[in-house]
Structure formats: structure tokens, C-alpha cells
């Protein structure tokens, strides 16, 4: 894992001091709210429905146990005993006091963490594959490249007042686990025929009210020009992205309006110029970072057998455990989606327990996934039963990864001031309704957003649900057929919306159509793609038989 040196530490320490000073000036009246707002946002501090909310960055989703423990302690000390893990691999606290925010940042800095650029019209936290460094299908571990981007983008002087927020993701395998093409810039680290590493740039993806899948604008940027190329992409956007309309300000609109070819031409011209400016870190810097992501000392000749005699454990194994690249090890995903629970929420005690498990069983490492779960990346197969038992006792053993109960849900109207409808109660009702039938239904990714901003990725759900406001009453639209893997697609709205009960029934009907039509081995998404919308629509909107 990346370890700060004195330079990195000095930067976050300076940030804490700066924010403390900004808060002081806000409280003594020298800064008006209009001026303070962008400053607090660049430190992840929002004003939400009930209080201030703090979003803490988890760069590329990787944490050690000391950091995770601190996240739990902060939940107890400054919040109300819990935190919410988000689709962008961050954690949010919902009940923060402005006066205490600088102290929280100071506590975070003690464990090499921060809330820098977790909001605002700047380059946000860079996300990555939650299985990085543990899965066999990657070309390289993508995290060193994400760390290079983290440093480049942190306090970038030219790109801190962009037209709109800017999100980047870096992956390094063909199986996309990070929704890479739904980011402002998605980078896939690839190897060419000559065996050299490069970065494929996908620019202009996003969700929100105009969801778009990013086109590839350059399939191979040499790896020692990745930062310069990023700079070129950003400069063209900073200069020409729309600033007249907040809803058209994301880079996806610029790429769409200019056309991919014209945008690419401008980027290439800027890139040619920037190559003369020597802004690229040397390969030695990449090597320095890579050394810190070296594999942990995996033991060899470990026992491969796992005792499956406990049936509950066996179900969990089949759902939540993935094949690891090292023999004798496995990747464990901890579901933060108990039946009827709040997706992504974890109590301070649960957070600290996961930290202890990571320390004891996973070489001190954890990951946050974009599906709002937690991963223990390197667990010995021989320890799986012990890990499962401790998780299960703490309510963290739900065996439902990628099943219908593993719902992504944004905070919705229970917490979010932009929401049109509540997301969490819908998620709770669906997970209760389908409890016990999850295995039968198989892989089904269900995603809920409380408004068109799409924080819950509803466009990319096999089943998506979007909360809308119908004359002051909560209403829900249903979408089918979205996906965010290597086969990224956007969902289609079925038709008129539903109330809370109605949307749960509509999901039930959609799954029934799937079960009645599925052929061997088909997932919900496969069946939908084969038979199309019509049969689903017919069932969902059929007048009840008398």
C-alpha cells in the first residue's frame, strides 16, 4: 500500500491548517457563505438535509486497518456512530459540526487520510478496481497509476475551478469492475503487442440527467505520457466546457457537442504542446510508487481445501468469495447489505471489526467497492471459516454479492437536499421481499437513485429505479437493461412510474418474466437482452386479472 513520505504528509497537514483558518474566517464573518461554500466543498463538507455532511476520500478504495479504525472512531467521536460507504469508494458522515470539521481533518491526517477534493468543480477522488493486486486477470495493479493521478490532481492550480466536477477511474483488466466508461475520464492500463504499457483514454462518460458512455479517444498513450495527456484533456475542457448551464457543464456534453473527433484533435494539439513543458513525472517516480504496491508476502504451499460442511458458510463462499491470483488465498467481499438494512451503512463497531479482521487475516488491507461493500483482498483459504463466523456474528455475513439484495442506493430524500424521493426505504422493501429467493434469481444488479443526478447508478442497473417528484408525492420510475461492466449499457424506462408499494411489485413482475423465460445459465440481463422490453412491459403494466 502507498505510504506517505514527508512531502505527502506536509501537504495534508498544510491543508488541515488552511481549512482551520478558513473555518475561523467563516465563523468570524470575514468569509461570506458564498465564498466559503466552494472552499468547504473542496474539503468534502456539504450542507445536507439534516446537518453538515463530510465526505472523506479513500483513494482508489484502498485502506489499511489503522485508517479503517480511524474511520470508525470518527463515527463515534464526531458523528452519530455510523458512516455511509459510497459508490465512489468514499465514506460519508451525516451529522458533522462545522466547528469540529477541522479537528476531523486533523485526525484523518494522522493516518494519512484527507477529504481533499471530494467535492467541488475539481478533479475528484480517483477510483479503481476493488480487486486490484489480488485478481489474476489484471495486466498490472492499476493503483500506482491512480496514485500518480492523485498526486498530479491534488491542488492542481489550473484545474480547481473547472466548469463542473471531474471524476476519473483507472482499471487494468478487460473485466471492468469500476464503471470506468461512466467517468469523465476512464483509463485502462493496457499492454501493446511490443509488451509496453500504455493508457487507453475513454473521455466523456457520465450518468446524471444525460447519461453517456465514454468513447475511446486514444487507445494507447505511452505510460510515461499519461499525466501529460490527462493535462491536455483537462485543459481543453477547462477552456471550452460550457459554463452557461450547470446541467450542460460536464465534459460529456463538450465531447458530445464538439464530436469525439474534434475534441480528440484539440486534445492532441494541446498534448503536442504540453510535451514540450516537461510536466510528466519521471518513470522513477512510478517505480517508487509501484514498489509500495508490491504483493504482500504470500505464503506458499498452503492448503487449498475448504471445509464446506456448514451449509450457511457454503452459501456465503459461493456468493462472496472470489478466486485470488495466489494459490491458497481468496478475495472476500463483505456485504453491507443485510436484509432490510441501509445499503452502504456501517456502524462504528462494524467498521472497527472489519479493520481488525483485515489486520489479522488480510495483510492489513481493505477495499471499498463501488457497489458499497468492503473487500478483504488477501485471505488464506484456511481462514475463511473464521472470518465468516466473525462477520456473521456482527451482521456482516449476508451472502448476496451481485444478487438482488446487493442493492446500490443513494442517500435519497432521507439525507440528501437534492432528492425527489427516498431511496433507502425502497431498497429495504425490495431486499425484504426477495429475501430467501436471491440464489434462485441469480446475478441481478439493482440500483436506486433518489433523483436524476444518478448517484445510485440507476442507469447502469440491470434493474434501475429513479425517484421523481410527482406533484409533491414520491414516485418511482423503473428502468431495465443497464450494465456497467465491460458490456456497459444504459437502462430503458419501462413506462409510467409507481408509488413505493407499486415499484416493489413491478420489480417482482420483472423478475417473474425473467424466471419464466430464462434459458440455461442466463442472467436477468441476458434474458432481457434476448427477449427485449415488450414482455416485461406487458407483465408490469397488465391490468390485474379478475
Amino acid at each position: 500500500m502507498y505510504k506517505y513520505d514527508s512531502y505527502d504528509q506536509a501537504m495534508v497537514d498544510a491543508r488541515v491548517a488552511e481549512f482551520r483558518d478558513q473555518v475561523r474566517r467563516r465563523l468570524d464573518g470575514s468569509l461570506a457563505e458564498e465564498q466559503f461554500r466552494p472552499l468547504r466543498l473542496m474539503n468534502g463538507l456539504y450542507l445536507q438535509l439534516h446537518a453538515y455532511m463530510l465526505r472523506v476520500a479513500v483513494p482508489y478504495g484502498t485502506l489499511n486497518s489503522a485508517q479503517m479504525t480511524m474511520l470508525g472512531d470518527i463515527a463515534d467521536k464526531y458523528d452519530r456512530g455510523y458512516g455511509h460507504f459510497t459508490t465512489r469508494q468514499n465514506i460519508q458522515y451525516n451529522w458533522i459540526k462545522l466547528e469540529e470539521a477541522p479537528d476531523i481533518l486533523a485526525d484523518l491526517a494522522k493516518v494519512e487520510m484527507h477529504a481533499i477534493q471530494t467535492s467541488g468543480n475539481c478533479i475528484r477522488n480517483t477510483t479503481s478496481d476493488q480487486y486490484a493486486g489480488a485478481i489474476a486477470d489484471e495486466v498490472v495493479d492499476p493503483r500506482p497509476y491512480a496514485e500518480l493521478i492523485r498526486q498530479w490532481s491534488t491542488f492542481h492550480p489550473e484545474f480547481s475551478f473547472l466548469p463542473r466536477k471531474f471524476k476519473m477511474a483507472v482499471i487494468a483488466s478487460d473485466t471492468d469492475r469500476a464503471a470506468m466508461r461512466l467517468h469523465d475520464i476512464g483509463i485502462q492500463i493496457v499492454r501493446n503487442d511490443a509488451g509496453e504499457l500504455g493508457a487507453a483514454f475513454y473521455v466523456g462518460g457520465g450518468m446524471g440527467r444525460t447519461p453517456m458512455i465514454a468513447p475511446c479517444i486514444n487507445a494507447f498513450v505511452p505510460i510515461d505520457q499519461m499525466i501529460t495527456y490527462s493535462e491536455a484533456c483537462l485543459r481543453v475542457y477547462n477552456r471550452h466546457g460550457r459554463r452557461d448551464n450547470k446541467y450542460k457543464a460536464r465534459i460529456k456534453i463538450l465531447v458530445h457537442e464538439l464530436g469525439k473527433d474534434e475534441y480528440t484533435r484539440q486534445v492532441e494539439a494541446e498534448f503536442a504542446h504540453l510535451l514540450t513543458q516537461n510536466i510528466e513525472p519521471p518513470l522513477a517516480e512510478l517505480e517508487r510508487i509501484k514498489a509500495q504496491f508490491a504483493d504482500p508476502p504470500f505464503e506458499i504451499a498452503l492448503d487449498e481445501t475448504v471445509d464446506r460442511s456448514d451449509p450457511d458458510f457454503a452459501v456465503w463462499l459461493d456468493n462472496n468469495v472470489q478466486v485470488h491470483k495466489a494459490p491458497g488465498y481468496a478475495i472476500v467481499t463483505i456485504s453491507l447489505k443485510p436484509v432490510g438494512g441501509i445499503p452502504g451503512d456501517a456502524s462504528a463497531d462494524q467498521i472497527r471489526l472489519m479493520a481488525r479482521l483485515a489486520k489479522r487475516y488480510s495483510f492489513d488491507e481493505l477495499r471499498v467497492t463501488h457497489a458499497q461493500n468492503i473487500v478483504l483482498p488477501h485471505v488464506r483459504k484456511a481462514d475463511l471459516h473464521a472470518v465468516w463466523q466473525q462477520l456473521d456474528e456482527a451482521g456482516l455475513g449476508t451472502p448476496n454479492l451481485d444478487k438482488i439484495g446487493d442493492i446500490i442506493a443513494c442517500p435519497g430524500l432521507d439525507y440528501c437536499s437534492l432528492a425527489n424521493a427516498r431511496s433507502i426505504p425502497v431498497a429495504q422493501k425490495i431486499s425484504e421481499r426477495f429475501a430467501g429467493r436471491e440464489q434462485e434469481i441469480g446475478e441481478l444488479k439493482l440500483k436506486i437513485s433518489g433523483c436524476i443526478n444518478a448517484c445510485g447508478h440507476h442507469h447502469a442497473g440491470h434493474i434501475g429505479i429513479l425517484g421523481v417528484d410527482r406533484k409533491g408525492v414520491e414516485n418511482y420510475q423503473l428502468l431495465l437493461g443497464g450494465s456497467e461492466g465491460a458490456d456497459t449499457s444504459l437502462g430503458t424506462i419501462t413506462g409510467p412510474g409507481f408509488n413505493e408499494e407499486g415499484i416493489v411489485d413491478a420489480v417482482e413482475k420483472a423478475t417473474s418474466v425473467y424466471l419464466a423465460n430464462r434459458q440455461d445459465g442466463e442472467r436477468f440481463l441476458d434474458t432481457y437482452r434476448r427477449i427485449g422490453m415488450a414482455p416485461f412491459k406487458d407483465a408490469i403494466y397488465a391490468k390485474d386479472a379478475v
Partner: protein
Amino acid sequence: MKILTGNDLKTGAVTWWTGEGWSLHVAEATDVGEHGDEIAARENAARRVVAPYVIDGENGPDGPRPAHIKDRIRALGPTVRLDLSVKPADPDAGSYVI
């Protein structure tokens, strides 16, 4: 009726204008009539509130009640964590927002 609401600058807590100061309970809110913006500007300048705004409300049996569900959830707290709401002891508190 018109109700003035905002958040406490220091703590972020949701607050309601009572005519004399800010309360955590919407039931203590007063009808600000035409004066909402003026009070909001004054209180904002005095740094007793952040992001104040005026909403529609109606008088109910327990006092003023916001007309829109969003502000009723602000008044109560998250409906999925009633233990953290202003009525932690009332299991049926969530029905207030509907």
C-alpha cells in the same frame, strides 16, 4: 403560512424561526408572512443561521407543519433512522412525513 428555516451555522442542525430566535422544533415556528427574506438576510448576516429559506406551511394540531415532504423530513430526521430523529421514542414517527 410562511415558515423560515435554515441550519445553525456552527452545528449544522436544522432550525426554525420562532419570531425571537431559532428552534430545533418546527412546531415552535412562527408565520413570517411577508418578512421571511428580510429576517433571513439579517440572521444570515449575524451568522446565526446558514442557508436560510422560506417555505410554505400549514397549521396542524401540533403547530406548524411544512407543506413539502422534503421539509417534513428535515423537521423529523431520516425516516430510516428514527432513533436519530427528533422523536426517537415514537415508532410511528415516520408517518408524520407522508
